[in-house]
């Protein structure tokens, strides 16, 4: 696992792989049998990275941004990768404070409103980053006799505390 982590770190930062490469793949570089699994993927990714770096003459940033279609952007977005929002831990930022109510924006469509916890609440001001456990991204309900749902234009989450807080609090 440590060898895999070092190799992954090498790929990410474009460092030399040779020193970190595990011995079995270095021995198989001269061998004939086709690689499979991780070794094949590793070779393909390093090849792609070399190609990208070699063709860095033109406006690389704009071409990589334009090549991404909406479908691929959506698929790779954290909101979609997260899956159902129930009981997911996220980090949000407090955008507004009204007395005891904290309005926290965590990257979804709506903010969530949490009550300031009794202990350690003075640290939570505008701009503080807090941890949340999401319950729902949008509070909606269909009432009797209505054509469409009624929405509260809010998300619901439990406030767990500031990001670097030492004591986790579970308050609504």
């Amino acid at each position, binding site marked *: 696992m440590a060898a895999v982590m070092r190799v992954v770190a090498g790929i990410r930062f474009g460092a030399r792989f040779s020193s970190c490469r595990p011995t079995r793949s270095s021995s198989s570089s001269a061998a004939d049998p086709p690689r499979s699994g991780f070794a094949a993927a590793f070779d393909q990714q390093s090849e792609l990275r070399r190609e990208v770096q070699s063709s860095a003459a033109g406006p690389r940033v704009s071409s990589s941004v334009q090549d991404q279609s*909406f479908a691929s952007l959506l698929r790779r977005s954290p909101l979609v990768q997260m899956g159902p929002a129930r009981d997911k831990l996220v980090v949000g930022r407090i955008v507004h404070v009204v007395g005891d109510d904290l309005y926290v924006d965590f990257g979804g*469509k709506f903010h969530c409103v949490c009550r300031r916890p009794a202990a350690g609440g003075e640290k939570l001001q505008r701009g503080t980053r807090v941890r949340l456990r999401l319950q729902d991204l949008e509070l909606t309900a269909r009432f009797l006799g209505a054509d469409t749902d009624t929405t509260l234009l809010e998300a619901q989450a439990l406030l767990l505390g500031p990001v670097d807080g030492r004591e986790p609090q579970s308050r609504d």
Partner: protein
Amino acid sequence: MAARALTRGLLGLRHSRTVTLTYSGGHHYATATSVKSPQPQVDEYTDKILNQPLQKPDFFRVSELFSLKDLFDARVHLGHKKGCRHRLMEPYLYGCRLDHDIIDLDQTVEHLQLALNFTAHVAYRGGVILFVSRRRQFSHLVECTAKDCGEYAHTRYWQGGLLTNANIQYGSGVRLPDLIVFLSTLNNVFQQHVGIRDAAKMNIPTVGVVDSNCNPSLVTYPIPGNDDTPVTMELYCRLFKMTISRAKDKRRQMEILHGLSAPSTPSSCHE
């Protein structure tokens, strides 16, 4: 109606028929086609300054102001839940993920480009643009945007006869807006804003951001997109401000370039 037609009469009546394609408010000048242009200078003026932007599809290059990635980062694609969906918004939706509607940003890019292009043309010709939004959360932002680009905003309670009864409520000869931009087409109680229906009655074109629970049918240039997140609203306000400023600067530039001064119309002296 006649007062409005007269004020716009000198500003391009001759080619009003040719602009009906791009300027959907042009058809209401049909009553004043009998008014003839007085001097040949006006023709030269209209040809150089007013006709030239119509030759190209994107004269003001508004498509360079934003990209799909910018819209995505500003969370424009997030819609409401499936239960809140309006039936007429279904063509604009990409799909529904875990009960949350996702708006198709490819369509949004096209619609936004059309809307910004139209706004730029209206601002270029010195039209009065009114920003309307009944979201109290963003009312200050909308008012500041309008002030910064020299246009108007109405983010308070909409009186019933604001447009339809303007001559009686505000005196005769009042000039109505030439374009109304709705940054949110809903009232707080999930009714559609009265201004959309009134603008359609008064033949005023509208640009509106329609979320997945809005009715896009009466809006002339709908922009399917999120209208609930502060980041998104800031993006829209920034785009409209840049478009209008760019169009007005272009107008000043064209006037200086061709060395012509505008005829005595209130076209470019509204504040």
